[in-house]
């Protein structure tokens, strides 16, 4: 069995789950594809999963209303061993990458992190992923019988729902107590399309001058383009923007069709989160800024003048 731990939100499967289904179908390793859904009020997500999987395993309970690494890893490992899964696929989100190592240890499995490709052949699983702050493409291989892999978002096409209706099963789980207590949370909701799902990302850095400058320039341009909004660490640290918008080594990784960098210098830690974008556009007043080395298009100029002109041009 290939076990997929689904990512879902608001009763719907996330795009990443459909991408993982494609990864599973192309793996070249036999066995049914089962999707496991841990959560609360997941009827909708389970119904969607039934259209792309051979089996849907559901654990719909209050305990799963909020993510916890120990609960998730215990649940996934238990289902994987009961189902004798040889491959466990988990989303390459922050939480997926956080709990997957625990699953691998529990299953005595090899862990392949953030893979962009995954193939089974000649009794070994080989994969590719990025290393050295996403500057190097590394090929890896493991002879381990059981593998756990996290799948990098955006690396596989989303599977199209078929006409099959897979059977759904409720699962019994032995779960540990939560040990990490969440005593407060500030979750940032945005009305915009999310960073990981957007075709266009408009991102701002310190060059936008202020939080207001960001609103006017970056959000202003994003509104015209129906784009998601991203930020550098520098301005997240300055409190201009929420952390959920941060792109880079310690933020999100994106690979949209177009990434528009406004007043961003292009430090390696930032590039590591966006350098795989199809087209990169940079606007910066310093022609020597490293961002221009990775740009397809750019303007050397003052963002305070260029960006309003772009917004104007789009309005017309």
């Amino acid at each position, binding site marked *: 069995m290939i076990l997929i731990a689904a990512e879902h939100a608001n009763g719907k499967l996330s795009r990443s789950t459909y991408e993982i289904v494609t990864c599973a179908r192309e793996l070249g390793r036999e066995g049914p594809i089962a999707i496991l859904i841990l959560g609360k009020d997941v009827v909708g997500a389970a119904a969607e999963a039934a259209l792309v999987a051979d089996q849907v395993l559901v654990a719909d309970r209050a305990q799963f209303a909020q993510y916890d690494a120990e609960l998730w890893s215990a649940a996934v490992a238990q289902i994987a061993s009961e189902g004798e899964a040889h491959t466990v696929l988990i989303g390459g989100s922050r939480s997926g990458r*956080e709990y997957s190592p625990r699953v691998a240890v529990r299953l005595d499995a090899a862990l392949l992190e953030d893979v962009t490709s995954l193939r089974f052949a000649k009794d070994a699983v080989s994969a590719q992923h990025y290393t050295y702050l996403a*500057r190097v*493409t590394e090929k890896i291989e493991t002879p381990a019988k059981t593998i756990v892999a996290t799948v990098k978002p955006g690396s596989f096409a989303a599977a199209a729902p078929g006409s099959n209706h897979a059977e759904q099963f409720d699962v019994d789980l032995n779960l540990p107590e939560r040990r990490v207590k969440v005593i407060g949370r500030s979750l940032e909701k945005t009305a915009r399309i999310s960073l990981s799902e957007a075709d266009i990302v408009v991102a701002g850095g310190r060059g936008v001058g202020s939080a207001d400058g960001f609103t006017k320039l970056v959000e202003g341009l994003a509104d015209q383009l129906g784009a998601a909004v991203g930020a550098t660490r520098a301005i997240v640290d300055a409190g201009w923007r929420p952390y959920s918008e941060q792109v880079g080594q310690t933020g999100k990784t994106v690979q949209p069709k177009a990434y528009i960098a406004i007043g961003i210098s292009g430090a390696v830690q930032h590039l590591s989160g966006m350098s795989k974008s199809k*087209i990169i556009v*940079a606007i910066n007043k310093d022609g020597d800024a490293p961002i221009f080395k990775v740009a397809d298009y*750019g303007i*050397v100029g003052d963002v305070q003048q260029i960006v309003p002109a772009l917004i104007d041009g789009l309005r017309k």
Partner: protein
Amino acid sequence: MMTLIRQVLDAEQSVRTRDGAVDLANSKLVMDTMDEYGLEEALRLREGGIDAEVIAVGVGPARLREALRTALAMGADRAVHVETEIALDPIALSKVVAEIARQEQAELILCGGQQADWDSQALGAATAERLNWPQVTWTSALSLQDSTLTGKHDVDEGREEFSVALPAVITTQQGLNDPRYPTLPNILKAKKKELRSETLEQFQVQPMVKITGEEIQVKERLRKILDGKDAAAAATELLHLLRDEARVIA
């Protein structure tokens, strides 16, 4: 308190490959910044009155001793170096780290949130699982009182405040603190501190994942950079390129 130390390529340096593998032989290596945050945090806890030793632990080649010496110069009390030229994947490595934690009776392990060489986020969580400890990743603030850690950390869609009783594994990230630089007197003092060497054999671990190739794939970029002195003209030209050449906007 145990802090894990990894030695990586200085972020300012470019990566070189040779014969399908990253070649670090002539590159400047430094302590992973992520590990500096962990060490700094342990030092601050000790200075804040926590009565515990700070032990820096590293698994890797002979060169790694430099980074462990730096850790001692920053203020770690002693260091343990498990010397090996074998590249252990994080799941295998966690076995070594967990075993040392048991031997040293550690109650808190600080580990980098993401390694700057392998881009791996797995070591902290895998170690926690082996020890059956809880973990908190990507912490941006930390305090310790009566064996309970409280702090803030980043999650998929925002930030959480948490509390957890020790023992625990904490992974770090930029912004947790501002790591100190080793001063000259401390560098001299560090020379007298214990840096114990161990061999890998006793831990009986084998890598589970093999690296079969490393390549730098630089995507060729068009680099059509316009002069923006005339903002309106440059904007018009850029929109034209994005629409009609790149076809990324309607």
